[in-house]
């Protein structure tokens, strides 16, 4: 079977539209507070820009791109540009794309875990959070 470039492009366009709609649902499900103030068009625009950057880092799979926009919703739509270490880590070709995303997510998770532990310590001491 032969697949022509034009056919691949057409397939990409349909998939992209469907993918963006899936991501809209995904973000409203998992990050409702973070996206509630965005109109549908604004959210789709942020998603398209985020997906472009994700692909620029070599994040080719739908799963990795979904995780990327999830981080963007939680930490800021330009999170990879606001914190230089993120772009550097996502561009580090020492690692496969999946591992690059794992490393970035792990750092954000650790940061949240430390922050949560510290908040619990303050509450246990009697400093209201």
């Amino acid at each position, binding site marked *: 079977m032969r697949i022509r470039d034009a056919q691949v492009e057409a397939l990409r366009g349909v*998939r992209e539209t469907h993918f963006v709609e899936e991501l809209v649902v*995904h973000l409203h499900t998992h990050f409702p507070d973070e996206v509630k103030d965005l109109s549908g068009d604004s959210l789709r625009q942020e998603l398209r820009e985020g997906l472009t950057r994700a692909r620029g880092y070599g994040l080719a799979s739908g799963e990795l791109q979904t995780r990327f926009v999830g981080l963007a919703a939680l930490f800021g739509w330009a999170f990879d540009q606001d914190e230089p270490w993120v772009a550097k880590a996502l561009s580090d070709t020492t690692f496969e794309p999946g591992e690059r995303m794992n490393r970035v997510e792990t750092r954000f998770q650790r940061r949240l875990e*430390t922050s949560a532990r510290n908040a619990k310590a303050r509450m246990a*001491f009697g400093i209201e959070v």
Partner: protein
Amino acid sequence: MAHDIVFKPSAVFDPERAYFSKCGPREPPPSPQDSSEAKLTQLKAAKAAAASISSGGDVILPCMKAALQALEATVVDTEGKPLDGILIELRKSPTEALSARTDAAGTLRFQGLAPGTYQLGLLELDQDRWEILGSEPLSAERAACRGEAAWTAPRPVAQTGPTSYVIQQGECLSTLAHLHGLHADTVWDLPDNRDLKSRRKNKNILLPGDTVILPPRQLALRDVEPSNAYRIRRKDASEQLRIRFLDRKDRPRGGESYLIAIDGPNGTEERTGKTDADGFVRESVSATTTEVRVTLGQDLERETFIFRAAHLDPLDTLSGVQGRLTNLGYPCDKDEGKLGALTRRALQDFQRDEGLPVTGEPDASTRAAIEEKHLA
């Protein structure tokens, strides 16, 4: 190695230098709104759900390379905590290597490896500073990978002789050894440092200007194989912080709840505890700890005390005497190394309280009493 300090509030508070400096009451820590726990839950749930997103991504993805495997290494400290940013090199041959740093979970994953034996080394640590604790096989899913490794030349390892280093304010031997990948005891016990060791009894109370000789770092390489996860321990000298809190009548503030915030290069860690019956706060710290804040008391009596690491000078210096007297509630650090009116009054008050001849001079018996009271 214990870092000791005795602190009691003075009638006239004056922030001064100390081994842990700027002792004294401060405002309690702010009470920020914290949503970290909720965000963590969101992140984990979203990550799990991402795997089920059916569309999206490139139409064509690279195939898994069945013959290529991964190797994982996790580096922890002596307490089992993961270590971020540790440089590890994996050598395939004398001319081919991969190197990178561990992530925030202390783990590094090398991918695209053909079956065989490789050599693994921690490039920034002396051979005596780390060891492989053990290994376990990776699952088939974890062992598989898509791409081939991008081999480069091994990083050059400088083989130089011992180097001398001049101590700056805020530095101690533990931090210096740590920065150079050496074990603190290796440096302290070096014959070249014998003279320093005899002058300064405590390796973590040095004077700015002291010269420390650092031995060259020796590289160690260990044999490893792909499809395995290795657990590596960095051997650190154990560092414990002990701060004793006394009230104005010299009574230990025993059984008091405290909140301690420990600053390091990777951020701040906060913990709660209770002083023991003798008024001691006892906490593990690392060689990279820069500042510690301890909050004691409740409600209107709550106070936060700030201590900066490695800022106390040796006791045979006037600044060292002043730092310790200030911590003991006799503020005089503003004299900054000079035997001024503040220091004379502080010495006289201390001597009077301790039943010593009231001379206002930092004589030998006064220094001995200060050391006994201050614990260091």
